[in-house]
C-alpha cells in the first residue's frame, strides 16, 4: 500500500462515517456538523483525484458558507431533546440497512470484476486537469450551455424559494 492508497482509505472511511452520522444522529445540529466533516473528507478525495479546484470550492462553499448558514438556522430554531419526541422503535431503519447492504454488495461485486482488468480506463488526464484555468476555459467553451442553464436554474430556485416562503407576496 502506498501513501495514496492509505490516504484514500482514510478519507473514504471518514466520509462514510460522516455521512452515517448525518442520518443516524438524533440532534439536527450533530447531523449538520457530521455533514461538514463528510464534506472535508470528500474534499480530500478530490485532491487525490487531482481535482484541486473542486476540493477548495467544496470546502469554501459547501462546508464554509452553506453549512454555516444551515447551522445558524438550526441553532436559531434551537430544538431541545424533548421536542424531538420520545425514542420509538420502528422497523423502517432495519429495512433501510438491509436494502443498503443488498445494494452495496451488488455494486461492490460489480466493482470487483474490474480488479484484474488490464484494459485502459479513461483515466488518463492532461496535466492541467482540475486547475481553475482549465475549469474556467471549459465553462466558457465546451460547457457553455450547462453553465448558462445553471444560472437559469438558480433564478428558478430563487423565485421558487420566495414564492414558497413568503407569507404575503
Amino acid at each position, binding site marked *: 500500500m502506498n501513501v495514496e492508497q492509505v490516504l484514500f482509505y482514510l478519507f473514504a472511511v471518514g466520509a462514510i462515517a460522516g455521512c452515517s452520522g448525518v442520518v443516524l444522529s438524533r440532534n439536527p445540529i450533530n447531523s449538520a456538523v457530521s455533514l461538514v466533516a463528510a464534506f472535508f473528507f470528500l474534499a480530500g478525495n478530490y485532491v487525490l483525484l487531482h481535482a484541486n479546484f473542486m476540493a477548495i470550492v467544496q470546502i469554501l462553499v459547501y462546508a464554509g458558507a452553506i453549512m454555516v448558514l444551515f447551522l445558524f438556522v438550526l441553532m436559531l430554531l434551537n430544538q431541545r431533546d424533548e421536542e424531538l419526541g420520545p425514542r420509538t422503535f420502528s422497523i423502517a431503519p432495519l429495512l433501510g440497512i438491509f436494502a443498503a447492504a443488498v445494494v452495496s454488495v451488488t455494486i461492490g461485486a460489480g466493482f*470487483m*470484476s474490474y480488479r484484474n482488468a488490464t484494459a485502459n480506463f479513461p483515466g488518463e488526464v492532461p496535466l492541467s486537469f482540475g486547475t481553475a484555468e482549465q475549469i474556467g476555459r471549459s465553462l466558457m467553451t465546451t*460547457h457553455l450551455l450547462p453553465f448558462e442553464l445553471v444560472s*437559469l436554474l438558480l433564478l*428558478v430556485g430563487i423565485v421558487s424559494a420566495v414564492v414558497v416562503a413568503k407569507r404575503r407576496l
Partner: protein
Amino acid sequence: MIGFTSADLLGLLPALLLVLAGMAVLLLEVFQRASFPRTHLAYVTALAALAAAGVSYLIAPAEPQTLWGGMVRFDALGCVITAFTAVACAITALGSTRYLEELEIDRGEYYALLLFATAGMSVMVSANDFVVLFLGLEMAAVAMYALTAYQRRSNLSSEAGFKYFLLGALGSALLVYGVAFLTGLTGSTGYDEIGAALRAPDAARHFANPTGVVPFLPLPLVGMALIFVAFLIKMAAAPFHMWAPDAYSGAPTPTTGFLSGAGKIAGVAALFRLFAGPFATPDLSGGLAGWTTLAFFAAVASIVVGNLVALTQKRVRRMLAWSSVAHAGYLLLALCALGVKEAAAGSIRAVILYGAAYAIANAGAFIVLAAFGRDKAEADTLDELSGLGRKHPAMGLALSLFLISAAGLPPAAGFVAKLSLFSTAFAAGEGAATPAYCAEMLQWLAVGGLVLSVAGGLAYLRVIAHLYGRDAHVRVDYRPHPATTLGVAIAAVLTLWMGLMPGRVLVWGGNVAKQLLPAEVQAAPAEVAPAAPTEAPKAIEVVPLPTAELPL
C-alpha cells in the same frame, strides 16, 4: 474560441422564448399593484407558450442535428414534445386566472414558474448530454415543486409540495448517481460517447462476470437502472408512485393537470431518447443488458395499481392522480415495445400520440374542475359534481370529452392513442427480443392492460354519470372566465382533432421514429404490420381494428 453559433441558438429557440417570456412576466409583475388582477399575465403566458409551440413546429429539422458541441440534439422528438408541453402550459395558464383570484394567490410568479417549467422540459427532451438532461430536469422540477406548494395558506398544498420535493430530490440524486457510474466507465457524459463506448467491441468486459458465482450486476446496468428508477420517480410510475396522489390532490387544481400530463410525457420522451440511443444494442433487440425487463415490471405494476386503486377513489382529483399512475404504465408499455426491433418505430408513433392526447386532455380536465368550486376550494367529491353537466352544458360536455379521452373511448384522442399503443405492444410480441420471454410477456401485458384499462375507464365513466345525474345537495359555484373558456376550447378542439384525424400526429410520430432510430432498424422490413402505417393514414383506416373497449 466562440462558444456557439446562431444555429445553436435556433435549435433552442422554443426554450429561449419560454424563458424570456418567463422573465418578462416576472418583470411585469414587479410593476403591478397588489389588488390588480393578473389576467393579462395569463394571456401573455398563453401567447408565449403557443408561440413557442408554433416555433418548434416551424423549425423542426428534416435531419437530426447535434448542437452546442454535442450537448443538444435538435430533432423531431424535441420539437414535437416541446410543442405539446407548451400547448398544455398555455391551457393551464388560461384556466388559472379566476381560480388564483378566488384563492387570493393571484401573483405573476405563478405564470413565470409555469413558463420556466415548460422551458426546462424542452431542454430535458432535447438533451444529448447527461449534464444538460439533469439541468433541464431540475429546472422543470424546481418550478413544479413551487407550483405544487403555491397555496401557501393551505396546509394540504404545503404538505403536497414538501412530499413532492423530498421524493423529487431523491430521484435527482439517483439520476446523478447512475450517471456517475456510466461516466466513470466511459469517461464522458455525452449520450453519443457513452453509447459508442458501451457498444464498442471491447465493451464485453463491462458485462462479463469474472467469478461466475457471486450474483453480479454489470456496472453499466447498475447505472442504467439507477437512471431508470430516477425517471420512474419523476413520472410517478409504480412502485415509485406513492407521492403522486398526495402531491396531485394538494397542488392548485390547474397546475395538477400540467404536472401530471406534461411532466410525464417530457419524462418518457427523455427515456425514449436514452433507450433508443446510448442504451440500445446496435440492432435494438431487447436493449442493452435487458433493460426491457425493468421497464416491463414497472409497466405491469403501474397499470395494475393505477387502474384498480383509481376505481376506489371518491374524490375526483385523487382518482385522476391514481389513474395518472396507470397512464405512466401505458407509456412504459410503449417503452418495452421499443426494445423489440420490429415494433420500435410503431412504439415511438404510439407514444407520441398517446402522450399528446394525455397531456392535452389532462390539462383540459383539470382546468374545468378548477372552474367549479365552493368556499374558496374546488368541487372535488363526486357529490359536488353531481348534476353540473346539465346546469353548465358546455363545461360538462368538455369535461366528459376529456374523461372519455383518458378512458380511451371514441371519438376522443385517447381511443386512437390506446389502439395504436396496444396493437404495437401486441405486434412486439411477435418480434424477437432478448431476453426472449419479454416478447411473449408483452402480448400478455397488452391483453391484461386492455382489461385493466376497462376497469380504469369505469372510474372515468362514473364521474360522467354523476355529471349528468341528480343535482348536488351542496351549492357549487361556477366561476366562469373568458380565459378559462378559451383554454377549455383549445383543449377540446385538439382532443377531438387528434381523435378524429390522428393522421397528422402519427406522421409527426413517424418522423420522430425515423430520426431517433438507428439506420439499421429502419432498413429492416417490418414483418409485423404495426397498427398505423407509415404514410398518413386516413382516420377510417385506423378505426376498424377490433375495438378493445367494446365491453363498455
